[in-house]
């Protein structure tokens, strides 16, 4: 068998999978998004073409813009904090002479093991106004006298749901930064120390430039995924209070799978979300393209 046909043969399962589960649904979502599709149409199997109607209705829906605004705030807050925290904590666990750093390093991956839906529920227990664990801690340490309504206050709810998300996804960022840190040759630091550079200078002029690429990669990956946050919203606030934590994926999910089940509009809104994420993905590919040549 020639190398070419062998390569093709080896890729048949992948091509089938990608076509069936990724390619076809994305195209079909585009199809649904320009047709009138509700439960009635699903039963009869006849979808009437309605042009840009669904997109028009999504873009005219104030709730969609609220969701988009919330998603943007959520993404900026989570990704921003994650990058700062990941660099700081990666530097911290790199201090192998400190025994507590070794403990942290051992524990750092733990949140990666927690199912997102469980994470959400655990934090809804932490945040609970009446029975919550966080208020219990603050009461018993004497920091507060009245319970705080963490996730039930429209002003703080969106920020409250960022914390569990950061908690769950931070290990990924820390691990990438930590791996990059270990790739920096030690003698650069030694040379700089001989030349009289203090710790801050070494961080600013050696560490940070060497971490630039990995930070960019984390920024893009985390932005794309934070844009599609779903589980923590479902578990903690279900979009509430009011519309304070409606995010883009939640919007598409609710429009589609709760009455009146508008599959057309749901597809249109999901497709808008996809286009935004696709733009991010293209930037990512350009960035790591040099490495893609393998």
């Amino acid at each position, binding site marked *: 068998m020639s190398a070419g046909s062998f*390569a093709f043969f*080896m*890729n048949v*399962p*992948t091509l089938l999978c*990608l076509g069936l*589960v*990724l390619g076809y*649904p*994305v195209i*079909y*979502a585009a*199809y649904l998004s320009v047709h009138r599709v509700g439960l009635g149409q*699903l039963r009869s199997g006849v979808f009437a073409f309605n042009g840009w109607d669904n997109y028009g209705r999504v873009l005219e829906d104030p709730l969609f813009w609220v969701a988009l605004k919330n998603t943007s705030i959520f993404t900026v807050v989570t990704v921003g904090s994650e990058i700062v925290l990941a660099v*700081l904590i990666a530097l*911290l666990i*790199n201090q192998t002479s*400190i025994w*507590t750093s070794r*403990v942290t390093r051992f524990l750092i*991956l733990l*949140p*990666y*093991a*927690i*199912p*997102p*839906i*469980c*994470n959400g*529920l*655990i934090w809804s227990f*932490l945040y*609970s106004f009446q029975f919550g664990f966080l208020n*219990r801690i603050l009461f018993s340490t004497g920091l507060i006298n009245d319970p705080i309504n963490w996730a039930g206050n429209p002003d703080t709810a969106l920020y409250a749901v960022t914390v569990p998300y950061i*908690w769950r996804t931070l290990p*990924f960022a820390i*691990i990438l930064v930590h*791996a990059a840190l270990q790739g920096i040759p030690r003698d650069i630091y030694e040379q700089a120390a001989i030349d009289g550079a203090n*710790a801050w200078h*070494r961080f600013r002029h050696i560490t940070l430039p060497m971490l630039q690429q990995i930070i960019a*990669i984390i920024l893009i990956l985390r932005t794309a995924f934070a844009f*599609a946050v*779903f*589980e923590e919203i*479902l578990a903690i606030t279900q979009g509430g209070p009011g519309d304070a934590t409606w995010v883009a*994926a939640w919007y598409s*999910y609710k429009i589609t*799978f709760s009455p009146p089940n508008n599959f057309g509009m749901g*597809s249109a809104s*999901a497709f808008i979300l*996809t286009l935004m994420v*696709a733009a991010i*993905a*293209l930037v990512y*590919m350009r960035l790591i*393209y040099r*490495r*893609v040549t*393998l």
Partner: protein
Amino acid sequence: MFKTTPTIRILLHTANLTVIFFILLPLVAVFIGSIQSERALQADTRRVLPLEATLDNFTVILTKGQQRGRIFDQATYLPDNIKSFYTAFMNSAIVAGSVTGLTLLFGSLSAYTIARQRFRWTLFLLQANIVARFVPVIVLMIPLYVVMRSVGQLNSLSGVIIAETGFLLPYAILILAPYFDTIPTELEEAARIDGCTRLGAFFRIVVPLATPALAACGVIMFIISWHELLIPLILNARPDFMTLPVVIASLVGDVHVFFNLMMAICLLALAPTVVLVALLQKYIVEGLSAGAVKG
């Protein structure tokens, strides 16, 4: 990296303790919540540690509601989904196991050719996989629901397995490809000269050498699949086919389920992947960086 004066050491220890506190806080909360009764949680809302510890929450879940124990004595209602814990656990195990197997098999076949054969289309395939990794699940689920519904594949484990395999395959390929690239070609060439077929050389020479990468990829696939909520939530509505995350999600908003029971079922659901992460940490760390950086 820098001289550690006593002041700096204290600062670093404090920073570490803060991080450790943040990591452990939700885990302590889920554990304490799971060993309390509803009455104890409501009686004193300012206590961190429970007045009494009980295993009744676990008993009621693990005996499908048969043995209610003291704290559920008076309870007239238990959600049906709590009773289907074993079914859900088995469904989760079947789905996660199958998805892991399929993504490893298909993924290594593809990743190997992408790493070895430099055709224009294999490079294109790699790029397609990089982009595919970004596709939000929600945009796939609406059309998949419509299609699965029309072909009568809603409420089946195979539908969920196919959907998750397709969704995770690009990521598996991204994790595996850089590793296959580091395996020297000489061994395969020698095997080929000795009369081995290309496929034979792949399975007999390359796959055994790639065991660490397969372990890294496999454990990550298992974890993501064990955690996946949206795909089984949308495709399976009948209790017989629910996975654990779906059962847990169904408790959200059920006014009759209190935190003690929720924390207990969460603890049972997160235990398997916590054990995996504790045992296979090294592989996961390698897999995560390979999948993100080296394309």
